[in-house]
């Protein structure tokens, strides 16, 4: 069995599962946020159930439109706050919260071998820790909150092998953009992606979160990594719960195996309006930008801010550009403060925000006007994603976003270092 199949088999009390089978899976964690939970709560009430199946395994996080950007968003945030109090579930208020997919692993709420279902498509992020995590809609999550389980079709697994050593300034974002560019936005539709190889072994845990996060951008159900020393180091001090590090069988069956030599890979950029519209930065450099966003569940972790600060320290954001930096959680924010990262970014002329999904989905904290163009470390560049349907988003890693902020156009960090 593959990594995904092993975890799923263990969560439906079976010795073996095969791709295509419909199974009922026990969930170790069921999560929703300020835009998906209101509908989940409405459907939960319709079920006629009084209490969630286990309050310690149900999480709600306000993160998309908070601190509330307008009255309607405040009402939605209030709705989930009230529900969380009523049910005694796990809840993080503004001031304690972070972007859900940055926060949950930090708090030790997701461990290797676990199954997480959540009403957010980027739930697949937790695959970085060797968990099977997948996004669903609000009704699915309402039912999972009531029963503690959910139906799933066992996905086939596609294996991705990355050979070679990465060049400076190249990280997880570049690997996953390159991969999506190769296979397309539905290249892994319904499948689990399993990421392995020398370049993966060397990748910091943050880079793995970034890669797993964007598995959905290839249509995947999950994106998984094996547990190694880096995973265990990350988990140290975050949990006292036991966990299982599953290993795929030697004779595991894969739908396909893709092998890439990434030793000469340049930083990658996805041009509007699909995450698969990918080119090396050298082919897109020169495109003028109005805004650079560094943050999100994709690239809002400490290592991402370190890279941004490395480029921006002692330099100035281009006078025509707004550079918006959003630490993914309070922990990231605090550690970035202590390391002097925040100070360097503010000196450079960036604005630094409290954790929020904000501009990634055109919510607040940097919405684009008609005709404006952004380079962003977020995950989607669909029409209207960050604001006006006549604006444009180029996706990139933090190094390219920071270099572009300085030069006022899409740029490689090599150009200024």
């Amino acid at each position, binding site marked *: 069995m593959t990594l995904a199949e092993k975890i799923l088999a263990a969560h439906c009390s079976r010795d073996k599962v095969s791709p295509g089978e419909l199974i009922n899976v026990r969930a170790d964690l069921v999560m929703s946020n300020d835009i998906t939970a*209101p509908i989940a709560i409405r459907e939960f009430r319709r079920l006629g159930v009084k209490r969630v199946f286990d309050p310690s395994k149900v999480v709600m996080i306000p993160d998309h439109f908070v601190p509330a950007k307008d009255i309607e968003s405040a009402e939605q945030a209030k709705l989930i706050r009230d529900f969380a109090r009523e049910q005694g579930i796990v809840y993080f208020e503004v001031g304690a919260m972070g972007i859900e997919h940055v926060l949950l692993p930090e708090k030790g709420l997701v461990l290797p071998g676990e199954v997480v279902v959540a009403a957010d*498509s980027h739930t697949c992020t937790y695959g970085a820790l060797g968990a099977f995590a997948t996004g669903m*809609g609000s009704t699915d999550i309402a039912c999972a909150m009531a*029963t503690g389980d959910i139906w799933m079709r066992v996905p086939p697994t596609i294996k991705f092998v990355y050979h070679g050593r990465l060049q400076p300034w190249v990280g997880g974002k570049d690997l996953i953009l390159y991969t999506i560019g190769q296979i397309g936005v*539905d290249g892994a539709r319904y499948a689990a992606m399993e990421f392995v190889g020398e370049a993966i072994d060397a990748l910091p845990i943050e880079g793995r979160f970034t890669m797993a996060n964007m598995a959905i951008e290839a249509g995947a159900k999950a994106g998984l990594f094996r547990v190694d020393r880096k995973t265990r180091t990350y988990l140290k001090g975050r949990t006292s719960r036991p966990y299982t590090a599953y290993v795929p069988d030697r004779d595991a069956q894969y739908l396909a195996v893709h092998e890439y030599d990434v030793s000469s890979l340049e930083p990658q950029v996805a041009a509007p309006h699909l995450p698969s519209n990918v080119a090396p930065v050298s082919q897109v450099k020169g495109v003028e930008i109005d805004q650079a966003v560094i943050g999100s569940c994709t690239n809002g972790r400490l290592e991402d801010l370190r890279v941004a600060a490395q480029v921006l320290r002692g330099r100035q954001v281009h006078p025509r550009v707004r550079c918006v930096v959003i630490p993914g959680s309070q922990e990231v924010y605090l550690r970035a403060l202590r390391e002097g990262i925040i100070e360097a970014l503010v000196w450079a002329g960036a604005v630094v925000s409290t954790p929020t999904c904000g501009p990634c*989905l*055109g919510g607040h904290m940097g919405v684009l006007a008609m005709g404006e163009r952004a380079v962003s470390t977020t995950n*989607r560049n669909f029409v*209207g994603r960050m604001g006006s349907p006549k604006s444009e988003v180029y996706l990139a890693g933090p190094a390219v976003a920071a270099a572009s902020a300085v030069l006022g156009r899409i740029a490689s960090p090599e150009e200024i270092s």
Partner: protein
Amino acid sequence: MKLTGKVHRYGTNVDTDVIIPARYLKFSEPAELAKHCMEDLDADFLKRVRPGDIIVAESNFGCGSSREHAPIALKAAGISCIVATSFARIFFRNAIDIGLPILEADDAPSGCQMGDTLEVDLESGEIRNLTRDTVFKAKPYPPFMMELIQAGGLVEYTKRRLATGPRAQ
């Protein structure tokens, strides 16, 4: 059950951000969401759409975010059914969960144009283009999913389950 309606024809990778832009996710009421359905992709959709109409699209319909607001908005705007070459998996779940019929049919999109009249038989999976007098066959649902659909969606299905069995421990 047979559904009949005019076709709204779209291409590949129709994402949830264009089905219902995130700027409206501060709402969750179906009627409010319906007011903005498809506006970033097709400004005329809301002027044109009539109750019972059918969307026909190519591959990977509904890709992107998990927002259930997307099928809710389409259903509330009057769409009775979606036919596509393929669907993104979360959209597929969401549509079945809320009782919006969706059908996968490889050759239907190439045989349908904007404004054609379509008749869809949900039981047999037969898709009839009444304007062009052509017939297409949708992929059958697995039995479990048919059970979900016949129950009236996941909430009704789960209600029955809860009435008969224990919850997970």
